[in-house]
């Protein structure tokens, strides 16, 4: 079904990878709709990935915990809990977001 959607997801970005050869990137803030089948009747095969800022999220989906545990450490950081304060490895979040060096 063709359902137009207008998002307020200003922090989300969608990446859709065609298994043939193409990559499309768009912000989830734009109005979008899924298209119909190809003219030759071939089905659409794609992998669609959706990204949020680290401090908030749209859905409550997370991969299987065993799958996350088997990932390299840097990739695991894509699936960390949604919160802002200090939620970075070897970073300096506080100094980058406030004019003052202090705890909240």
């Amino acid at each position, binding site marked *: 079904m063709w359902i137009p959607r207008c998002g307020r997801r200003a922090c989300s970005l969608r990446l859709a990878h065609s298994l043939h050869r193409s990559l499309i990137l768009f912000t989830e803030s734009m109005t979008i709709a899924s298209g119909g089948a190809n003219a030759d009747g071939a089905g659409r095969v794609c992998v669609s990935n959706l990204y949020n800022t680290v*401090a908030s999220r*749209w859905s*409550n989906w997370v991969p299987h915990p065993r799958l996350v545990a088997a990932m390299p450490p840097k990739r695991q950081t894509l699936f960390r809990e*949604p*919160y802002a304060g200090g939620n970075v490895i070897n970073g300096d979040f506080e100094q980058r977001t*406030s*004019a003052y060096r202090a705890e909240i």
Partner: protein
Amino acid sequence: MENQTANGFHLPSDACQFPARNADGLAVPELPPEQRYAFDTHGWFLVPEVFSGGELKEMHEFAARLHHRPESIPESERGPLGGPLQKLIDHPLVVSLLNEFMAHPAVTSSECYGFSVESTSLFYRTPGMGSFGPHNGNGLLRFPGDVHYYNAFPGKGHSPHTRIVWELTEVKKGQGGTLLVTGSHKSVYTAPADIQNPVSDIWSTYGCPAGSLLFFTEALTHSATTWTNTDNDRIAIFNLYSPVDSGFAKLYRPHPELLAAMPPLRQTLFRDRYVVGNVNGASV
């Protein structure tokens, strides 16, 4: 609006209802225009003496016991959501302000709050306690996801990170109450060097009787300061609220037994952190 219904759907605000009663069944009053204006313009305001008499005494005694003899309180109640303090978390005056400045209609219903609790703390300060440390401000300029921002639209202010302080003992002005830089949630410059002086005129503060209620947006520049009142200690409950999908700290989980014993509406303050479908009692 006619054109919108012809081509799509109404935005959710038409269909959504804010809770008109809190979890204890108490009516939520409309936020008075004076308070709405003060919160948006100054970033803070105080309601004196919301509690007094026996009710205040009961909360004061529980908080003092929590500080001095926590082991005398059952584990599930051993915190600022325990005993007589729990009702503070969604007191009608609190819900009134948060409905206006925090609740997003799409994740709100008459059975579900449109905001969440990020933390709740007891501050027990004796003379000499409390460290000065200015933080936050410039709330229009934070990056997405950092909840220390403030949105201002014509006729609508939005404070996604709101602090609500219950002063259970008297606060004498200039003797250790929270310091606030009035209006700094909308400032676009960083403060001059005087911000590092706790007695500078740059700071606003307050005095109030026990049982008073302080609201401020966390986007405001604010600070603790040293408690110097030798007539009484500071006993204050600091509650912090965030949107349902984001927060500064990790998700706050009350003791499971305490959570299970709460009325269903109050439980919605502690739900998982995301947006889509994250509302009870409304079609999404």
